């Protein structure tokens, strides 16, 4: 006690002052966070917009800091529109894939698992979400390699014909599974799956058993109960999950660089433009595309009531 008597008066005065002046206290509490998120992060978003209004001088390779819509206009070039369409289509396909694969586990977690089991499953689904996703993508590169385990299984199960047929298909095919959109789709679905399972299971938990029982009692077979009762009630959860799967696919550059042929998606395109191509304005303009698509998506999702399921 004797040691502290020296410092107490000053500390006391400070805390008493702050207690009497909550406004000042508030400013002190908020200013570091606001400096980081408001000034640096918010400012960077503004810089992103500004950067997309600059343009690259073709001949000198220098960035001209004049404000114009030239760079944004370049997004409507055929090649750029193709990239946007391809990425959006992949995001949609990945979202559907995630929803289908996530459903059984989400339903089991919500309706059948014991509380203990539920905690365990919850942790098992959560772990991959927090662990390094680059590592998880690399593991797929190993699995899908030409002599790798995927082709080994296909060979052992005598499914070569099926695989060749799938790879021969227009759009999704390619010379090998690791160089096809099909392979890329599998890896995307795998990587974002936990983001779909969690909100879906939360939504399914809120579907009252009495409704599914009633549907069955009234003569509906399970597929009909699923379609008419479970699916509509689980929709907010599905939409909530799709926000993640869609947004993450739109903005990713790791998976399209590691798996697939070198056809451009938004992510790798942005990476190339800001790096070796030295066209930061075009990179900034292109990265506004996922931002715009997600804004529209979120407005739609809000109308569908998906935010209550988050």
């Amino acid at each position: 006690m004797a040691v502290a008597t020296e410092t107490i008066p000053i500390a006391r005065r400070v805390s008493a002052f702050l207690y009497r002046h909550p406004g000042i206290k508030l400013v002190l509490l908020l200013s570091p966070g606001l400096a980081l998120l408001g000034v640096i992060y918010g400012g960077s978003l503004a810089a992103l917009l500004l950067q997309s209004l600059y343009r690259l001088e073709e001949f000198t390779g220098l960035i001209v800091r004049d404000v114009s819509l030239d760079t944004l206009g370049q997004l409507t070039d055929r090649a750029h529109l193709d990239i946007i369409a391809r990425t959006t289509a992949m995001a949609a396909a990945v979202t559907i894939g995630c929803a289908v694969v996530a459903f059984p586990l989400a339903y089991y977690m919500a309706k059948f698992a014991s509380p203990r089991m539920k905690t365990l499953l919850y942790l098992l689904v959560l772990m991959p979400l927090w662990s390094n996703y680059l590592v998880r993508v690399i593991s797929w590169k190993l699995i899908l390699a030409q002599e790798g385990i995927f082709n080994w299984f296909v060979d052992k199960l005598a499914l070569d014909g099926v695989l060749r047929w799938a790879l021969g298909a227009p759009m999704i095919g390619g010379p090998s599974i690791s160089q096809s959109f099909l392979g890329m789709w599998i890896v995307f679905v795998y990587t974002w799956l936990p983001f779909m399972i969690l909100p879906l299971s939360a939504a399914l938990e809120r579907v009252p058993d009495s409704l599914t029982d009633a549907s069955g009692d009234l003569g509906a077979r399970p597929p009909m109960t699923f379609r008419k009762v479970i699916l509509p009630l689980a929709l907010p959860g599905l939409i909530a999950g799709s926000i993640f799967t869609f947004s993450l696919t739109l903005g990713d550059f790791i998976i399209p660089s590691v798996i697939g042929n070198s056809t451009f998606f938004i992510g790798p395109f942005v990476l190339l433009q800001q790096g070796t191509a030295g066209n930061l304005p075009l990179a900034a303009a292109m990265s506004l595309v996922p931002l715009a698509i997600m804004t529209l998506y979120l407005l739609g999702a809000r109308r569908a009531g998906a935010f209550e399921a988050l």
Partner: protein
Amino acid sequence: MGRGWGLRVASGAVILFLYFPITIIFLYAFTTEAAAFTFPPPALTTRWFGVAADNPAIWEALRLSLTVAAITTAIALVFGSLMAAAVYRTRFFGREAISFLVVLPIALPGIVTGIALRSSIAILDVPFSLWTIVIGHATFTVVIVYNNVLARFRRMSPSLVEASMDLGASGWQTFRHILLPNLGTALLAGGLLAFALSFDEIIVTTFTAGQQQTLPIWIFSSLFRPRARPVTNVVAIMVVLVTAIPILLAARLARGESGGRIGARPTAGPGGGAQ
């Protein structure tokens, strides 16, 4: 229960699908082949661990990643708890906007955050450094601590602090004996998660690192080098282990907390806010 049985098998298959690939990377850290991934591997060896240990670039990247993660965690802890304290105790104009601002960096696609920071780095002519990486990581880890601490504040009675001050404790004593013990596990869980998230991050880092290599960036660039491929797998295993430990610890600490605060990341989606 016929249907429950089918569902159980399907659920097991999904869990298997989630975990099987990780085991493969462990297997291929031991393969003898330097440039292919034949299954089953022709033979197993531990020599790649030695090769990895002898590579100074890997140690350099590890050191950078650990430094960045440590500083980021410290910033996230301080900024996140201060903001949580402000939002919890007082109602003020723009309080909702703060909740929104905090989740924005993880709600937006990482590439948007990355290129936004890259744009201001370019416009302000800031040289790339440890600090450009740290600032990038701090933007999306503050929310983790913020969510954890805010949830704990809400369960804690505000009268505890007032009682302590009334009984004559100094601000420091109140902080040391009342606030810290109450917030302890929330801070620890938030800090561990922030550390894991920062240690792992690659998307935003790619745009804020310049020529510097964090461990994930080293791994990513090594994917495009044809030689000694299993070394990449050795480093990948190391990253999995370094991040799995804090995550599991945080999950243990967060158990019993409403909704499990470790879920802050998937649930703090766009518009989801930190309610």
